[in-house]
């Protein structure tokens, strides 16, 4: 038997096509919306990155599961809470690099291209800034990835990453609109004020890094820049402190809150999707009663005593009495004394991200503020203090927060009092700022950064100051209500969260989506 066969010569498309089709503004805006969605999505600010940032700090503790892993410092490089933010940041960076490269050939006006370029630089700088604070030096990419790229880059130094971050934010600030001149359709996108504010924070953080690495002159230069950028926001008159601290957290007043919120991630109850893929936020589920992320009792004690005695902000930010919807009983937490018939729970809860009618437990209306005018004033005060000590300008900025706090809901209180320079040194004022940030910004994802960047008077980080010294006297264990004596007995710090200080905890581990796969990547020491 004979079989004949023949074949036609087929032309196979062998090389990838790299031509980019002509882009119109509507296309580009869609892609940029996608980048905001990546940063605010489940793999970053909705869930994956806020978990380590809030729970690895000293003031929260997690009762079980992933929350407990972070508050007990048991995390590993494999954790999805590092993998996903890392991958998301680099996806945003690659998208920014790609659009930046092909922006010139887009079918759009010069003004649009200039504003878009700034927006892309903001998003890229934001991603690198998040990563350098969490992980240290990371590989820098400013060119889009294609088939001939080198996939395996080594880590750049912290200095190099900051150089890129600061350059991106400075150039972004130049081309973005002022908040009050932003087009209504672009509400929520970054503004000039957002770029300037984050530039100020980046310079401040970098200055702290330089100080901790014995580069005092470099640090002073950075602090001056931080102060100048903060001043430019203040002088621009685009933002103000809301008179009532509670209005920041009221979802019926969410739009108006952006007079103070300079940049935030916006979430909304999403009927079209549910749970993780919805456009809603979920931090409310974890932090509000009866969630797993709770306030450490020792921290709560500090936020209602000393400078903060009778501080309205504590009443707004925390809750110690609530209706437990599971058993329909009024429940109180430490340190409140229960009335007859009321049940008790050990720890207070955060009360900022409240939604009375979420669509499901990952579908809340609450936005997540990234930087507020209040924080900017504290950045100004901190930078000024690093340069000149607690002078008039520094105290004036700081005291605006105290004044606002006394204002409560219309009735003016006597506390918290404004600070005066009497008896205040650079070191003690820095500590005041640390504590003020602790109350003003509680639950907003800043605490862990403050711990690892700010210096205690002995020159070590605040993280070491707390974990190697200040936390030690607190009795291990949560408070228990003794019904005979009608007092709270027991400990003041969640069990297993008093983890002995190790230098490795000042950085998070590089995730395994990088370190196992990229042979040029080195892991952070200790992991």
């Amino acid at each position, binding site marked *: 038997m004979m079989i004949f066969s023949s074949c036609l010569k087929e032309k196979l498309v062998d090389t990838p096509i790299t031509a980019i089709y002509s882009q119109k503004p509507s296309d580009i805006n869609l892609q940029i919306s996608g980048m905001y969605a990546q940063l605010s999505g489940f793999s970053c600010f909705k869930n994956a990155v806020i978990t380590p940032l809030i729970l690895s700090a000293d003031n929260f503790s997690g009762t079980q*599961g992933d929350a407990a892993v972070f508050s007990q410092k048991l995390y590993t490089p494999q954790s*999805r809470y590092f993998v996903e933010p890392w991958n998301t940041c680099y996806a945003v960076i690659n998208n920014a690099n790609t659009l930046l490269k092909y922006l010139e050939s887009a079918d759009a006006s010069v003004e649009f291209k200039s504003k878009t370029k700034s927006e892309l630089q903001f998003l890229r700088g934001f991603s690198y800034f998040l990563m350098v604070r969490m992980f240290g030096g990371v590989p820098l990419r400013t060119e889009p990835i294609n088939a001939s790229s080198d*996939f395996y880059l080594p880590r750049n130094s912290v200095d190099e990453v900051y150089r890129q971050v600061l350059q991106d934010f400075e150039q972004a600030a130049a081309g973005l609109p002022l908040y009050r001149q932003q087009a209504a359709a672009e509400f929520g996108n970054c503004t000039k004020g957002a770029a300037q504010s984050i530039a100020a924070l980046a310079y401040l953080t970098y200055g702290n890094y330089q100080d901790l690495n014995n580069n005092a002159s470099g640090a002073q230069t950075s602090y001056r820049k931080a102060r100048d950028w903060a001043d430019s926001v203040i002088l621009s008159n685009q933002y103000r402190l809301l008179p009532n601290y509670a209005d920041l957290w009221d979802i019926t007043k969410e739009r108006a809150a952006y007079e103070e919120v300079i940049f935030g991630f916006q979430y909304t109850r999403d009927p079209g999707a549910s749970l993780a893929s919805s456009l809603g936020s979920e931090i409310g589920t974890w932090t509000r009663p009866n969630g797993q992320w709770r306030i450490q009792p020792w921290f709560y004690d500090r936020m209602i005593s000393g400078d903060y005695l009778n501080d309205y902000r504590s009443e707004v930010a925390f809750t110690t009495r609530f209706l437990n919807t599971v058993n329909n009983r009024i429940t109180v937490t430490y340190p409140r004394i229960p009335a007859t018939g009321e049940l008790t729970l050990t720890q207070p809860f955060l009360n900022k991200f409240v939604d009375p009618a979420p669509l499901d437990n990952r579908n809340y209306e609450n936005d997540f503020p990234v930087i507020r005018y209040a924080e900017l004033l504290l950045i100004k005060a901190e930078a000024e203090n690093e340069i000149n000590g607690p002078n008039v300008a520094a105290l004036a900025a700081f005291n605006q927060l105290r004044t606002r706090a006394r204002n409560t809901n219309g009735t003016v209180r006597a506390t918290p009092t404004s600070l005066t320079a009497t008896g205040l040194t650079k070191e003690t004022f820095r500590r005041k700022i640390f504590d003020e940030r602790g109350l003003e910004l509680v639950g907003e994802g800043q605490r862990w950064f403050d711990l690892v960047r700010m210096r205690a008077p002995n020159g070590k980080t605040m993280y070491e100051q707390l974990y190697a010294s200040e936390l030690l006297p607190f009795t291990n264990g949560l408070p228990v209500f003794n019904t005979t004596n009608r007092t709270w007995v027991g400990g003041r710090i969640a069990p297993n969260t008093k983890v002995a200080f190790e230098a*490795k905890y000042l950085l998070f581990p590089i995730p395994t989506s990088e370190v*196992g796969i*990229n042979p040029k990547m080195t892991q952070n020491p200790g992991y």
Partner: protein
Amino acid sequence: MDIGLAKGRFRITMDYYERQTSDLLLNLTLPGSTGFSSYAVNNGEVQNRGFELEIDTKLTQGKLKWNLSGNISFNTNKLLSLGNTGEILGPNYGQSGTLQMNAPVHVARPGLPIGSYLGYRIAGIYQNQAEITAGPTDPVNPKPGDFKFTDVNGDGKIDLNDRTIIGNPYPRFVFGVTNDITWKQFNLNFLIAGNIGQDVVNLNRFQLDGNYAGFRLNVSKDAFDGRWTGEGSSNRYPRPTASGLSFRQRFSDFIVEDASFIRLRTATLSYQFNIPKKSIFRTARLFASGINLLTLTKYAGYDPEINAKGESSLTPGVDFGSIPQVRSFSAGVNVGF
């Protein structure tokens, strides 16, 4: 090679082959800093070398007719090279959801079968603090009752370099035997098949055997009954914990099992009726048969013959919630007109 003997009652076929495949289509896992997770490349050369033997006999031919045919094949798979790339790690399992392992299982390493398992070795449980202090430095800070990971490269610490080859997804040999026995009007036909020597990664046990209560998932009875409760109580399963994933998100030989099996795949018993010539039927046959009747295996999961994510040549042999093959019975009548 074909051999026939004894007037066609006995036939043997033997084959030896060596096949080299180049320019494999592989999914190269990319580091996160590229902004991408994987990239399809043509890379690599794989060699498959093997021997197959097939035997066909009519054992008996009298009143009891017994035809037996069987085959056995041996194959070794070896990755020859990956071009310029050193080795490629497979995709991460458990990147989200409750598995919480987020580590690769497979590796494509030249000189080894493609898709070999790469992981840590577990050498029991730390019974007391003295053992921990005497052991290698482990950044996860183990306590008494936790798994003892082996310092494979002997450098005094546990890290990614202590991963080693801990299993082979490919069988040493596979075989099948078909029997067809006819006696008067009865016929019994059954097929036995088996794969011997392969390892399967029982990823279900990563969740079930760690005695970890964090996600409120089930724990296997063996793991709970055999948990560590104090010095000397157990050297296999760790202490229960509500935080701190016991396996430390490391893929290890603890969940790699020998999945060799011998299976009675099908069996059919039938009776052929003698039909008188004038009847409207030509043939009539009554039968009862079963599929997947019996499996002999040491594998602890539901079915050793699985393959989750089997779409890639790089990722064979992982059991994660794979649905086992069903056992079914049927009976009926075949009628011919």
